[in-house]
């Protein structure tokens, strides 16, 4: 007799019990906006870094308190933009979740019959029984 473990392994190979997770395709607009804002934030950060170097040089050369004030404000702005870049990821995740919610897993749209197998069997048997045969009584 073939041992049970071997048989169950073959069965699981032939009859996969696990469903593959449904791949969520993001809305095109959402993806475009995400890419655009990400590029913009990165551009701002790059440009800001260059400006920051210049401001630091200016502040150290002039030793003017106003220049240092502007520099500190700029540093704060740069830190905010970096934070926003991270927030963008969070927002994208939220949007992905919403998309997932819109497509419940395993839901089929074109249902012909909803019920248990017993109900289906009963219905099919009834259908087969209720075939009406017309009898010609004239003869």
């Amino acid at each position, binding site marked *: 007799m*073939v041992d049970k473990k*071997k*048989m169950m392994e*073959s*069965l699981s190979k*032939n*009859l*996969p*019990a*696990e*469903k593959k997770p449904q791949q969520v395709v993001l809305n095109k607009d959402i993806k475009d906006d995400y890419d655009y804002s990400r590029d913009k934030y990165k551009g701002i950060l790059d440009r800001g870094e260059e400006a920051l170097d210049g401001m630091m040089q200016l502040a150290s050369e002039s030793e003017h308190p106003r220049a240092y004030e502007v520099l500190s404000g700029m540093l704060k702005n740069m830190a905010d933009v970096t934070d926003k870049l991270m927030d963008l990821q969070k927002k994208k995740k939220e949007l992905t979740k919403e998309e997932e919610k819109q497509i419940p897993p395993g*839901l*089929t749209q*074109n*249902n*012909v*019959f*909803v*019920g*248990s*197998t*017993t109900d*289906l*069997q*009963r219905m*099919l*048997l009834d259908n087969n029984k209720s075939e009406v045969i017309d009898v010609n009584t004239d003869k």
Partner: protein
Amino acid sequence: MSIQTNDSYLGNPNVKRDGVEHRFTAEEFEEYNRCMVDPKYFARKYLKVIHLDKGLVDFDLYPYQEKMFDHFNDNRFSIVLACRQSGKSISSVAYLLWYALFKPYKQLQSWRTRVQQLGRCWVGLP
């Protein structure tokens, strides 16, 4: 058809619990109806048998096994004259399994070894 854990019978994901609601698509509906009407198709497509050399294989019926199925279907009693090791037991088990699955309110009686074979075939069903 995969089954969620709370819908499976005794934790076996291959066997569905009684009364579980399912949304049948047109294809599934057609397939179920076809299996219900034709035991030969059901056996060929869904049953697996253990081959001594190849292991678990599809149950491909021989013509005489098909004839047996037809005879079982059309007659109340059947007497089979066949040589040993010709697959008559597994054929009758396959037919009994089909009968148990698709004929409601029926009781089956068989020898213990046949019931064990039947159980093995049943576990392998999708």
